């Protein structure tokens, strides 16, 4: 297992290099630059700005270490993600601040989705073709059908503007060190974004759980367990749910990575200072430093989460062994 993890981590290096190179080339070939302004800047100013941000060198050249691309790789190897052209602040600072918020929001949405999705899916499967099954299927269909920008706007109008139960702006999570302290949370700000972000994965988890549970409940070992006289609770919790978890884990991993790395739409709708907004905004304003920083960050985050999920497979299913 250790060798497998090390091998996977080493594979991340060429993967990251390929992603960086492709992004770098694409980014510099998109029309419009970071200093293209509604009111054009005088040529001398553009020249000085290019020099300030290292854009006075060729993008890529034979003399690779004297090019923007080469400089970026050298700096990245030293852990320097550069400076945001739009805010003039270190990219790493902005990413960490944004990630601290996005990861908290994403984690809460993930927990919400897991609890609601797995519970509903399990209840549906155990009541196959019964009224509770229809409720579960209805939720999973409705949740999957509603884009979160509509759901978010809908939640704001009803629960914030009309009913006044929640706030419209910002994220109510505390600093990470106080994550487990309920009194540190501002639930007026935290609930709606979590629901807006969590409903879609909850619906998806409910569908997968239901399908997986239905399949597992038909297996011989479940019949055997019941024949042995085990209580239904033990059959479901100890034998059915655990074995039904493998396909659920398969979708949970990418979803966790997706949720904790920020959602542009939910973060924008609720004005949450997360990393998802950063990424989309940086593309719009051609903030080369931030584009590269977020791509590197997302790539590493997704690769690491996928690795963790692969390791978890082996934990959940002892039949899976990596060499």
């Amino acid at each position, binding site marked *: 297992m250790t060798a497998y993890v090390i091998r996977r981590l080493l594979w991340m290096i060429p993967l990251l290099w390929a992603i960086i190179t492709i992004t770098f080339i694409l980014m510099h070939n998109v029309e419009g630059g*970071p200093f293209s302004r509604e*009111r054009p800047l005088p040529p001398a100013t553009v020249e000085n700005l290019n*020099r300030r941000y290292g854009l006075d060198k060729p993008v890529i050249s034979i003399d690779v270490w004297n090019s923007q691309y080469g400089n970026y790789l050298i700096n990245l190897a030293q852990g320097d993600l550069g400076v945001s052209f739009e805010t003039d602040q270190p990219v790493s600072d902005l990413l960490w601040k944004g990630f601290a918020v996005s990861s908290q929001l994403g984690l809460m949405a993930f927990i919400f989705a897991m609890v609601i999705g797995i519970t509903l899916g399990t209840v549906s499967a155990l009541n196959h073709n019964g009224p509770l099954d229809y409720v579960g299927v209805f939720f999973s269909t409705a949740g999957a059908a509603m884009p979160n920008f509509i759901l978010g706007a809908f939640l704001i109008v009803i629960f914030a503007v009309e009913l006044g139960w929640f706030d419209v702006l910002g994220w109510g999570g505390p600093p990470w060190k106080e994550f487990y302290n309920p009194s540190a949370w501002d639930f007026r700000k935290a609930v709606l974004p979590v629901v807006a972000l969590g409903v879609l994965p909850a619906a998806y988890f409910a569908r997968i759980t239901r399908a997986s549970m239905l399949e597992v409940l038909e297996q011989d070992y479940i019949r055997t367990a019941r024949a042995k006289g085990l209580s239904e609770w033990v059959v479901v919790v100890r034998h059915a749910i655990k074995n039904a978890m493998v396909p659920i884990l398969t979708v949970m991993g990418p979803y966790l990575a997706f949720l904790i790395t920020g959602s542009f739409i939910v973060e*924008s709708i609720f004005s949450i200072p997360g990393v998802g907004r950063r990424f989309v905004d940086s593309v719009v304003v*051609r903030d080369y430093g931030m584009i590269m920083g977020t791509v590197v960050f997302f790539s590493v985050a997704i690769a690491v989460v996928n690795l963790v999920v692969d390791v978890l497979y082996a934990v959940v299913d002892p039949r899976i062994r990596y060499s």
Partner: protein
Amino acid sequence: MSFLKQWRYLLLAVFAIVALAAFAACGGDDDDDGGDDGGGTPTATEGLSGKRIDGGDLTVQSVEFASLDPHFSSFAQDISIQRMLWRGLYTLDIDNVPQPSMADGEPKLSADGKTVTVALKSGLTWSDGDDLLAEDFVAGFLRTCNPVNAGEYQYVLTNIVGCDDYYNSLAGPDGEPETADDLAADSAEVAALAEAVGVKAVDDLTIEFSLNEPQPTFPIILSLWMTFPVPVHLDRFANATPAAPGDWGTDGSALAFNGPYILTGYTPQDSATLAPNPNWAAPAGVSPTLDTITIKFIDDLAQAANAYRTGELDATDVDLTQLESLVTEFGDGEEYFKFLTPSTRGLEMNMEKEPLNIPEFRLALAQAIDREKLNIAVVQGGNEPTTSWIPAVTGGHDPTEFDSVVGFDEAKAVENFNKAKQIYGKEFPKLTILVGDSPAATATAEFLQQSFKDVLAYDVDIEVVDSKTRSQRFTEEQFELFPGGWIQDYPDPENWILGLFDTDGTLNHYNCSDPDIDALVEKARFNTNDSERKDQYKQVNEIISTTICGIAPYWHENNHWLIKPNVVGMRENLAGQDGAIAGDWAAEAWGLSE
């Protein structure tokens, strides 16, 4: 909120979910993966609902600043917060007249008008208690002229001796980028150019400026953000060199302030918090009464309107797509206010592209635009239709002054179009309107397209691109028709003309070239007879507007605000100088009432 009303919304929610589920079902089985005491000083009157209170927290919406460095910035939201934190030698009052701020009285001019001496008030201090001296202001000018800092508004200081030479120095003596003679920022030559910049501290309280030419607008320039002082007592600025001017940063605890407020907090993408500066000099006698100001960074104005409704915001900019409903909801003059901004939008025409080089053709296009209808169709009547380039408030003409010449007139438009056809001698090519991807921009382009089709039976294409692509194409003059415009940097007509309409102007990307304009600009540029100078620029405005030299103006823009009734000092100080927040040119007057 009654129980029944709550249930009504819950039922509405359930209904919407059912409707969406039904819609999804129909769509198949998708997995969805995926001045000291002048009449123009800021007023700080009582609110609509009672007397001003001492204290309170005000929360306002703005767009996030890109930089706090006043010697680098170019965005309105940057300038807005910078004016709250720092002030220059002078400040413009509500009538746009420069009044002493940190300066002790008016500037003194030499006999030839090329040397300007400004005395500082004595006893001024930074927010951290250190003395505010002439050297702090000198450092501010040098920072703006410094090519390494790359200040985006250096061009405003072009008349200060040596500022251009210093700013352009890294391109070397030939002035061309990337050549062998390029100077290094840490070279002795660059240091000498920095030394030669015509701003000197004569003593702790006296600053002397050397100008290339006498400049009537110089006191206005001395009120602008790029002239704000640098706290040179802080280590990183004390040790600044041309090659390393010192990082301004965004950490309020590592900066010092001489404006009415200090920065106490900043969370990127979320908010900035300000508190009163205990050492604020209060040049107009107005000091902050608030405990804190929180500036929430919100780009989406529909969301800001919701936050205003829930009470999370005390003031916000208005989403023009919701203008009518918001005016109805909040009442014109009650919580909704508007103020004419010194900005003009119009259809810009690249005069190097045929047939836009034919005056009759440009005139025909201008006369085919019904500006009243355009204003209603695109921004719900939120702007002021005009045919004048420079707004009257900045020394231009009345918005309707040239209506009879270039205003909407179908018959004249067709007549000029036919004349242009005869001159051109063949079928006109199909031109393209290059437009940004915002809903208002595309709606404008579609309106113009339909107008030309209906009035002139002339088809144009629309190309929608994102804002950066649009800006680059404009700068590179790769456009034919281009809805664009200008927002003034400082309240003088020269800011609407210089560089924009003179033949060799660096911002003249529509290639307007008129010998009469050039001759008038040459006369006006350093004319020390102020009324004559302004009249010369007014004549230029008439030529631009009536010959459509590069642009057919269609409206001056308004700022639209929602302000809570208990907010004071904001609606009273609405002015064209406002940056990004209502009355932000005099934020020291903001407060709350009972």
